[in-house]
């Protein structure tokens, strides 16, 4: 596949992530901070987000698995995940966390457990999408091309 075609595919794929609500403008800002002096910035930040999120999801699973659930502790974990996902623009994960926090406040155990599954699903979806995106970028760079600049004009 020639570089131009790869770049167009990358742009279409990136656009779809925004249109489908996986990512918001904050991710665009992340991309705009990447330059020649910081060529792996997005991948580094997102990598840390992945590590952080998986740790928090494990902590949440453990927290909701207790006989006597500490909702305050669970809320603290969700708050962290919400902040982290906001920072990188993982919109669906962030929105799930907002709902999760209100369920924690209500101390609705069953709803919290269902919501945790939803958060995990959204997280693994966006992780998969971002890994696909980074794979496409690596192919473009390997073929001697550069990653196009995205504008949020769609």
């Amino acid at each position, binding site marked *: 596949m020639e570089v131009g075609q790869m770049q167009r595919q990358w742009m279409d794929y990136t656009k779809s992530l925004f249109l489908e609500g996986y990512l918001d403008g*904050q991710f665009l800002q992340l991309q705009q901070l990447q330059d020649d002096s910081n060529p792996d910035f997005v991948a580094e930040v997102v990598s*840390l987000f992945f590590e952080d999120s998986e740790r928090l999801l494990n902590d949440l699973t453990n927290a909701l698995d207790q006989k006597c659930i500490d909702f305050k502790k669970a809320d603290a974990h969700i*708050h962290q995940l919400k902040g982290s996902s*906001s*920072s*990188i623009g993982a919109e669906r994960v962030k929105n799930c966390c907002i709902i999760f926090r209100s369920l924690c406040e209500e101390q609705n155990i069953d709803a919290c457990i269902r919501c945790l599954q939803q958060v995990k699903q959204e997280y693994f979806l966006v992780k998969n999408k971002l890994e696909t995106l980074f794979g496409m970028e690596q192919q473009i760079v390997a073929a001697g091309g550069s990653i196009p600049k995205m504008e949020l004009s769609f």
Partner: protein
Amino acid sequence: MARGGSSSSSNPKISALIVEDHRPTSMLHEAILKRNNMETKVVNNGKHAVELHSKGERFDVIFMDYNMPEMNGAQATKKLREMGVRSMIVGVTSCTDFERVEFMAAGLDKCFKKGLTRAMVEEVLQKLKE
């Protein structure tokens, strides 16, 4: 609120302290501030921010998260103001409205919702010039 000076009078760059326990978030904030030609330092909780100031370090602006271990943003802000720190302190947080009120009352100059954007930083820089 009067502003604290930067740590070196001959340094033309505005100095910023980022108080944030989340590595992905602090990386993002640091990159945005550096892109705006600011000198940055990062600590991962309010207690470390207070300790830096106890040792005499000062910054033109402090970007403070709310939820952090050991000492949260509101506690750290209150402590810094009690110590006489007059730097601009900007909250950057995804906390609830109730927590935000507590945060502002602790002595913030401004509070932004996470994530920090270049437009927000430019607003802060504009205020610093006034």
